[in-house]
């Protein structure tokens, strides 16, 4: 029998994060599922000098980088899709405050797979033959780099092939649509590399939009791509990906996406954003109030809402979750 792992977001960050750690998050590209709320809490608790591992940028990395909490990052895509360049990340990179090691989106997923499998390296048929292989922000003096993506010889054909370094982040905060108190998780929408990340990371915290009874997992075990045995803690945090989207739950908040990215373009704007949207709430109720009831209602009126329908009967009411969280916190 597995145990109740529900704890508060603040407690999860306190327990699992430390300055200088390799911190992984990010999920369904810059506008989708991501544990953005976990990143806010990292800032609230003044974590610094993070080594960020994001298969691709999101508003979370944009915020952490813009706020100066990240000194190294490994990443694929670094923009915000239709919302433009990621101003916070961009500012940190251009100033030299953050060393950004570039890979492709597939390479990041492959490196997480390599970490999950505990392989010494992953064969690379991508990223080779480009400056992703030749240029290293972590070893700027090596050009062309021979250590970032070195070459191995295929023993079957005798031909050279690249070798990607596996990733095993110290901590992964993974956004999921639904989790049970034991740590079983259902993701709606593309997984991106959350499956691989959940096996590659040394510690895994789930940040779930809603908590369901374990009976839901027994009804849909093929949907439970992250089983409890790899999970250390579960955090219940509705609108955890806000202002990004969570398929089945809520749409992207276009207005806040633009406001946030505009703020992160300057130090002053970032400071103001922190005051308003990072330190501007005391707890989950405050967070939800900050987003606003009307806004939450409109975001929840998503065309993907039907995707959640099969699981709604198992969603636990807030008071039950609060009770479980109180119990989980002391275990």
């Amino acid at each position, binding site marked *: 029998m597995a145990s109740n792992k529900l704890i508060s977001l603040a407690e999860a960050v306190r327990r699992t994060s430390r300055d200088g750690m390799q911190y992984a998050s990010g999920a*369904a*590209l*810059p*506008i*989708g599922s991501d544990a953005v709320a976990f990143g806010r809490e990292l800032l609230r608790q003044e974590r610094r000098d993070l080594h960020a591992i994001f*298969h691709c940028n999101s508003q979370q990395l944009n915020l952490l980088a813009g706020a100066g909490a990240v000194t190294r990052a490994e990443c*694929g*895509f*670094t*923009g915000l*899709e*239709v*919302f433009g*360049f990621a101003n916070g*990340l*961009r500012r940190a*990179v*251009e*100033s*030299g405050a953050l060393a950004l090691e*570039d890979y*492709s*989106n*597939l*390479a990041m*997923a*492959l490196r997480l797979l390599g970490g999950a499998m505990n392989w010494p390296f992953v064969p690379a*048929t*991508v*990223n*080779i*033959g*480009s*400056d*992703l292989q030749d*240029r*290293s*922000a972590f070893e*700027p*003096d090596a*050009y062309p780099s021979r250590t970032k993506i070195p070459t191995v010889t295929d023993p079957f054909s005798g*031909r050279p*092939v690249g070798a990607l370094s596996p990733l095993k982040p110290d901590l992964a905060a993974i956004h999921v649509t639904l989790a049970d108190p034991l740590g079983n998780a259902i993701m*709606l*929408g*593309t*997984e*991106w*590399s*959350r*499956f*691989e990340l959940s096996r590659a990371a040394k510690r895994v915290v789930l940040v779930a939009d809603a908590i369901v009874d374990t009976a839901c997992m027994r009804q849909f075990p093929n949907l439970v791509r992250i089983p409890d045995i790899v999970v250390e803690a579960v955090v219940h945090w509705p609108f955890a990906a806000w202002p990004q*989207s969570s*398929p089945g739950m809520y*749409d*992207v908040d*276009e207005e806040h996406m633009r406001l946030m990215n505009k703020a992160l373009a300057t130090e002053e704007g970032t400071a103001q954003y922190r005051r308003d949207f990072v330190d501007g709430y005391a707890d989950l109720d405050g967070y939800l109030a900050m987003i606003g009831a009307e806004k939450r209602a409109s975001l929840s009126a998503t*065309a*993907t809402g039907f*995707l959640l329908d099969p699981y709604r009967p198992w969603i636990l009411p807030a008071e039950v979750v609060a009770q479980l969280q109180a119990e989980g916190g002391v275990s």
Partner: protein
Amino acid sequence: MTLPYTRQEMMAIATGREIRDGELAIFGVGLSMLAGYFAQAHHAPNVRAMTEGGVYGATPVGGLPWGIECNRISANATSFTSGLDALGCLVASGRCDVGIIGAAQVDRFGNVNTTGIWDGEIGDHYRPPKTRLTGAGGANDIACGAKRYLIMVAHEPKRFAETVTYVSSPGYLEGGDARARHGFVGGGPSAIITTLGILRPEAATKEFVLAGWYAFSSAEEIRANTGWELKIAPDAAPIPEPSDSELAALRTVDVTGALRKG
């Protein structure tokens, strides 16, 4: 000259024409997705479209998607898998017929830079760019693995460089058979489609040359906006204007008129 369509729409239609029915195709966000779904709506109803994150069987609803995995394409997909699946099993593997990528800078051999703008060359010591861009994303994976790919780019001199400062996604590298050195399973870029015309690679040298111009542009205008001495293909010709049915199909896809704002 006032046209019944915008330059952006012409570029999207010209790109969409490159996609054949039944092909396995991967589209990025924004323009390239509009071009792809235009093809599906117009002449390639059986195109098998996917996104980088493994969203299959979808048609966008409610306007231009905010991103390639966003709710506007998650609302009617038949399958969601993962980046490893789409970019790995289906693209890097060599199965994907065609991809569409964008470029901040593209060079004579179709190499693409989407990583950053430096003041001059980077030099032997890596240093941060003056302007950081979006990085390689999945475009590098498409450039390495897709059987062919299309580059969509606004035709401005600063974007068409003799040599890109940083190769984010490999075209034909130094030209000729340089790609073979790395064993790429993909065939390389088959066309650069711009707001002014279409460039295609010469068979042997793989240098991109002018293949066609639009009704509103000319070989001279294109050469003047290209950062290298652009050759003109022997069979270069004007590109047909959008037909009524093409324009209607495009505007069905581009419901919010994103391409008409440019």
